């Protein structure tokens, strides 16, 4: 399931659709318009979002309304957040090492004057 989420999120048009769904439900033409996209093209992207369960469809008479589903997005975010945190731990140690290297360089450069 999560690979579907990442696949769905990999396209800028689909990310934009999700952003526009963040505040309220929208229909297909509302989703297609800001992307300057044809109906069939927009519909294809929406189906990718549906398959990833990021978006849920609600049929009201002749229109289809789409609504964002938070849970899969939260799960994908947890993955990314944990990955980010792991790397950040590495980089914090790197920052400390670079500070030591900078200090050493300063000492070496100012060494002869001190003596």
């Amino acid at each position: 399931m999560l690979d579907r989420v990442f696949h769905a999120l990999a396209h800028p048009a689909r990310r934009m659709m999700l952003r526009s769904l963040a505040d309220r439900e929208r229909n297909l033409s509302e989703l297609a318009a800001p992307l300057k996209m044809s109906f069939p093209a927009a519909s294809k992207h929406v189906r990718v979002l549906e398959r990833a369960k990021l978006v849920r469809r609600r049929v009201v008479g002749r229109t289809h309304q789409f609504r964002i589903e938070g849970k899969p997005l939260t799960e994908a975010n947890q993955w990314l957040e944990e990955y980010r945190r792991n790397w950040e731990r590495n980089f914090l140690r790197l920052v400390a090492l670079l500070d030591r290297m900078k200090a050493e360089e300063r000492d070496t450069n100012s060494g002869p004057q001190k003596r």
Partner: protein
Amino acid sequence: MVKTGVLKIATPTDFEIVITRPLDAPRRLVWRAMTQSDLIRQWLFLPPDWTMTCCDEDVRVGGAYRWEWAGPDGKIAMAMGGVYSVVVPHERLVRSEKFEFGGQPQDGEQRATLEFLEQHGGTLVKITVVYPSKEARDAALASSMEQGMSAGYDKLEALLASGEIR
């Protein structure tokens, strides 16, 4: 000064992970810290209670590198290695990456590009990892989650053992 939370992760395509992190140091120092084995040992990828037991670096085109880590039991828990294909000192590195977990090599390998970009008197490090498949990319993201979670459980166990939680 240590800035936190400035590391960015992006997944611009199905096959990639892009990591960017600004550092308050000149490129030549960042380059050394990321290519010299005695310096790499001081920062790279140390899960709690792990030690880096091998860090061989031959940073030139066609040169190989190998890193190994041992867990608390002293056994090699993870290894990673590959070959450098692009080496532009202080600017750019491209290398293959292949992981081994408990002696088992992963299927396929990924390609990592490290870029050192001058920015506001410091350096922006940009790491782009391209995986052979979407599944491999997602697995890499997920493995971190597992590690983070198991580290969390270890902490919980320690707390339970110390009697702080009853």
